[in-house]
């Protein structure tokens, strides 16, 4: 390492080991066409999906694009509030900034008819009973607290009924049905 020579004046002065230069920047986001449509209806307790113009695959939540093909999705479809667990994870450590009872279950929820899942919480279910293929339904916030926000659904709870067979649960269903053509 290069030897650094400092003026004798600085002999014995404690070296600076770190500098703090705080940065804060503020943004006002616009959600875009698809997310805006989705959030407006989510504020009416409706869940929308996008329909791929390529092969009809249903993508929830809608992002305005079928990312497999790089095409715009302009068609929306209303989804049921029931689905199944495509995969899940039981977490025993807290998340900074969120108060969740431990352990909690985060899961990929596949709505009935949807071709992709989204991340959400599963509750009212002991972790040892959670399983791939388990059927779930949405638990919404009280009506007076519903707004145009992703927080409208508190969590998903088991809804009973027979499980989706493992080989058809989650994205496996997509492959099982050969949807999405050669690109899927």
């Amino acid at each position, binding site marked *: 390492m290069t030897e650094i020579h400092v003026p004798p004046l600085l002999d014995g002065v404690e070296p600076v080991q770190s500098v703090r230069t705080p940065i804060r920047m503020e943004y006002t986001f616009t959600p875009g066409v698809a997310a805006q449509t989705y959030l407006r209806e989510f504020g009416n307790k409706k869940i929308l999906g996008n329909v791929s113009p390529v092969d009809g695959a249903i993508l929830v939540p809608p992002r305005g694009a079928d990312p497999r093909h790089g*095409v715009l999705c302009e068609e929306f479809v209303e989804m049921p509030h029931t689905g199944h667990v495509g995969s899940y994870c039981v977490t025993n450590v807290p998340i900074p900034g969120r108060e969740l009872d431990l352990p909690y279950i985060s899961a990929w929820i596949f709505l009935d008819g949807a071709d992709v899942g989204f991340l959400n919480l599963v509750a009212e279910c002991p972790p040892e009973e959670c399983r791939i293929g388990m059927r779930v339904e949405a638990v919404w916030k009280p009506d007076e607290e519903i707004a145009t926000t992703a927080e409208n659904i508190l969590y998903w709870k088991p809804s009973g009924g027979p499980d989706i067979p493992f080989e058809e649960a989650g994205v496996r269903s997509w492959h099982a049905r050969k949807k999405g053509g050669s690109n899927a």
Partner: protein
Amino acid sequence: MLERKVEAMRKVAIVAAASRQETKMLDTEVEMMIPLISEVKDKTGLDQTDIGFTCSGSSDFLAGQAFSFVMTLDAVGPVPPISESHVEMDGAWALYEAWVKFQMGVIDTALVYSYGKPSPGSLQDVLSTQLDPYYVAPLWPDAHAVAGLQARSLLEQGVVTAELLADCALRTGTVDSREEYFSQPMLSDPLREADCPTYADGGVAVILASEEKAEELCEKPAWITGIDHRIDAHQFGVRDLTTVPSARIAAQKAGVHDGPIDVAELHAAYTTHDFLLRKEMGLPEIPTHSQRSYPIKADTLMASGLLRIAEAARGIWEGEANRSLAHATAGPLLQQNLVCVLSGERN
């Protein structure tokens, strides 16, 4: 030696381009880019699986989100998996990366795109964060203030006069007369509003093709006959702000002076930058040819440079130019400069 090196270079051409700029866009980056990327694919008849390499340029500081470019890949259709890269720079540098891939001989076509949406945040603050983090950035000088320091230097040393700046503003249409220019109050003394850029959201996509492929995809490919980029020091204190050696060298290496230039597309956001760039690149101080530099209608950080290259190519496609020059800049006060020379003739 040099001759042999040039001979060995693979010829690469720009065969399609599409762009969009608006003051404030409500679309997401993906919604903005899909129509542009689809347009260049349609123009060339290429499908994503036909494209050898995809490279983009954008900034997380504009998006306010880490790895924001990954989300924008939704606009490309990267399934089945594609060969892809990204630069946190203007798309002109993404194009340079793709050009290097062509030279490696591993691709015949490339998709290059870039975009910037400054409207959700404060661009002046974003631009401050690119300054030296110890001594300059904590003072939060905005881009116009830093440009004002440089303009003062240029005026006091007599390198440029206020009349020349007024004429530049007049030429590029930000004012209708010298009187109007001089009646404007100072925005960032000694710069007036007419000297400074306005900003817009926008994006641009281009397709590049090798000499083996270009003529199949485009009637009149815009051949890249030279491309080079150079960087000046980051620290203002060691730079003479009245010169831009990096632009001068890049122009020389790109072969700007090897023939007449019919169209010059300069990424000059300030009148002072237009003046400095012309001087360093040996272009006429008062352009004799089509002057389409500042205002670029408005500056779109991360896209303006690639947009200049797309516009220079358009000059060739439309028969307006036989040889055109495109310039891109990044960093504070023209710190980094890329120069690209395009020709309607392959050799």
